[in-house]
């Protein structure tokens, strides 16, 4: 196509835009990242998707362009830049009046793969604006500011949601874990989780909330919390799904539900027990090939009283598992064909396991969807692999047990517990401030266990296990006082205490939570465990 033909077509496209049909203009824009669009009706934007969002049909619907006056042009074999006066008669807001409105428009086209594409369109109003149009521009600017505010909130929501996901895969001797999470929008409805269980097993979950965006993200957060609460209290994955379903059902919005695959891995034996609430089937790769792990169950939140089939597989050294969300298999190519289960299965068969598998799947998806394709749905993958030659690893995943002892429940015995924990973590390189904080947390948690859990009964000692896990140390303090909340539920308020409105006591749980990086409370049988987690080094985000 000759340059003049390109410009003639551009003018036709702009007339369509003026009438209220922005699609031809969007189609004329290059899909590359460097495209820009700027007008008086909103902020300048960069990138094809952003440009498409910024080309508002309502800014021009029912308008017309009465003439294009070329002021300058620059034409090469692969670049056209023109400066024109566009004389519009435009409607604004709800007004039916056509108001004269002139713009200086600078447009640039680039030849891409033999086709001329619009890469920038920048316009400025010329002369005095009609008062009504001025008001309309002001409203548009206010809307742009509002959009910016919403986008800022979404960025914050994205950070919050990201914090719901595990900071890093668990470090279990003899096992390798990897995960990938890629929401389609700023926030998504997929989630995954690794949940250390009191027995030394590891809970592994992948879930997908119907819908995308904020509603899905909120339901994702809720589901994750319910799952985290249920998982340590129940041994059976099927019972965990039943419990989560019962809790979610009353509050699930219409037309929403959650699919979830939840498994409990015994790192020592390789046994993986799992239940499936309507989620895409995970794949297991063994020496025999790749097969699905099947278990039946309805999605969560649809109806109460559901039962979930529970199955188990034993992973031998060298075996690996891929858990995934439907954003992979339901991705489309430009011809609207789906990626499908068979492609995913083939990729798993061909690729090495772990992070390399995740990278291969993402690479295959990119090629399949084509350049510039917009991700339609959230994408989540979790892989686990039993390392070859790894048999008989410690059931206490996380790098081994550094100490395992009991303390009789008697006042003052927390000092002995602190000393033994300190001896256990002595060689881990914790800095002195973290050591001091851990001492306080261990002392307080042990005191709580002896006093509130075991009620200082001589026949009920407190059990303490110290575990090393990759980048952290875990101290598990278990009483035998039965399940329940920690002793203090009211947040201490010093002013209230000084004025006699609160008891002077009640600082224990507060101090525990302030002293360590994570606190988890779980119950099993008549034992309640408080797990204190301290990272060996300060986190990059400044957390202690």
């Amino acid at each position: 196509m000759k340059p003049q033909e390109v410009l003639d077509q551009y003018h036709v496209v702009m007339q369509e835009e003026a009438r209220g049909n922005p699609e031809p203009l969007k189609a004329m824009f290059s899909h590359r990242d460097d495209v820009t669009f700027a007008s008086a009706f909103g902020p300048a934007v960069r990138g094809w998707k952003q440009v498409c969002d910024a080309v508002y049909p309502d800014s021009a619907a029912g308008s017309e362009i009465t003439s294009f006056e070329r002021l300058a042009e620059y034409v090469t074999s692969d670049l056209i830049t023109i400066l024109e006066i566009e004389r519009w008669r435009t409607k604004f807001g709800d007004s039916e009046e056509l108001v004269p409105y002139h713009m200086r428009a600078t447009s640039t086209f680039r030849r891409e793969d033999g086709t001329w594409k619009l890469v920038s369109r920048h316009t400025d109003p010329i002369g005095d604006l009609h008062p009504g149009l001025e008001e309309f521009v002001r409203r548009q600017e206010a809307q742009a500011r509002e959009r910016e505010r919403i986008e800022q909130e979404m960025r914050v929501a994205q950070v919050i949601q990201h914090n719901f996901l595990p900071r890093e895969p668990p470090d279990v001797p003899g096992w390798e874990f990897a995960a990938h999470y890629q929401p389609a929008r700023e926030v998504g409805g997929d989630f995954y989780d690794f949940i250390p269980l009191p027995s030394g097993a590891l809970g592994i979950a992948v879930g997908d909330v119907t819908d995308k965006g904020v509603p899905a993200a909120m339901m994702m957060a809720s589901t994750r919390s319910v799952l985290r609460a249920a998982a340590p209290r129940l041994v059976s994955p099927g019972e965990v799904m039943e419990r989560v379903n019962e809790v979610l059902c009353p509050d699930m919005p219409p037309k929403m539900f959650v699919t979830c695959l939840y498994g409990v891995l015994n790192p020592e034996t390789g046994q993986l027990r799992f239940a499936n609430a309507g989620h895409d089937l995970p794949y297991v790769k063994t020496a025999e090939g790749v097969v699905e792990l099947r278990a039946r169950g309805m999605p969560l939140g649809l109806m109460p009283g559901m039962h979930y089939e529970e199955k188990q597989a034993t992973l031998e050294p060298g075996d690996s598992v891929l858990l995934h969300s439907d954003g992979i298999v339901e991705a489309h190519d430009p011809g609207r064909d789906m990626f499908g289960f068979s492609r995913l299965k083939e990729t798993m068969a061909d690729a090495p396991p772990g992070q390399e598998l995740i990278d291969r799947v993402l690479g295959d998806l990119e090629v399949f969807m084509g350049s510039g394709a917009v991700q339609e749905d959230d994408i989540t993958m979790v892989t686990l692999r039993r390392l070859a030659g790894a048999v008989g690893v410690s059931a206490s995943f996380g790098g081994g047990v550094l100490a395992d002892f009991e303390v009789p429940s008697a006042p003052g015995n927390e000092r002995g517990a602190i000393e033994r924990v300190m001896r256990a973590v002595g060689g881990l390189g914790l800095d002195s401030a973290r050591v001091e904080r851990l001492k306080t947390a261990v002392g307080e948690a042990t005191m709580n266990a002896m006093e509130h859990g075991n009620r200082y009964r001589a026949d009920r000692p407190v059990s303490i296990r110290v575990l090393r896990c990759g980048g952290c140390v875990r101290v598990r303090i278990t009483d035998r006082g039965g399940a329940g909340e920690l002793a203090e539920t009211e947040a201490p308020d010093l002013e209230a205490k000084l004025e006699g409105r609160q008891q002077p006591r009640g600082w224990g749980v507060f101090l525990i939570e302030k002293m360590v990086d994570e606190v988890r409370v779980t119950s099993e049988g008549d034992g309640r465990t408080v797990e204190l987690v301290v990272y060996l080094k300060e986190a990059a985000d400044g957390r202690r």
Partner: protein
Amino acid sequence: MAAGELRAAVRERDGVAVIDLVGDVNASAEEALNDAYARATASRLGAVALNFERADYINSTGIALIVGLLAQARTRGIEVTAFGLSDHYREIFEITRLADFMTITDSEQRAVSGATGGTDA
């Protein structure tokens, strides 16, 4: 007296009652701390300085005892200062907000001069 059990001695310096705490500030410290506070305030001095230089261990019950002592002092208009806290316990005094209600200094000199409105020059 068991090992670590708190001993609390009271002395006067420049019009301030200094309570020297030696040992653990925990549940077993209640009697010693309250006795010391009673002696410190019996002489009608306007300020009390708690010396934590030799207090090895302070737990949540110890914090509660200090809160109780501070509450009593406030009702009588007695200023309470503290000095000699390690970095760790200073952090705990800050996160519990005790540091908002009592002046915490590095040295006895600063604690005493601060309590009496003087300078430590």
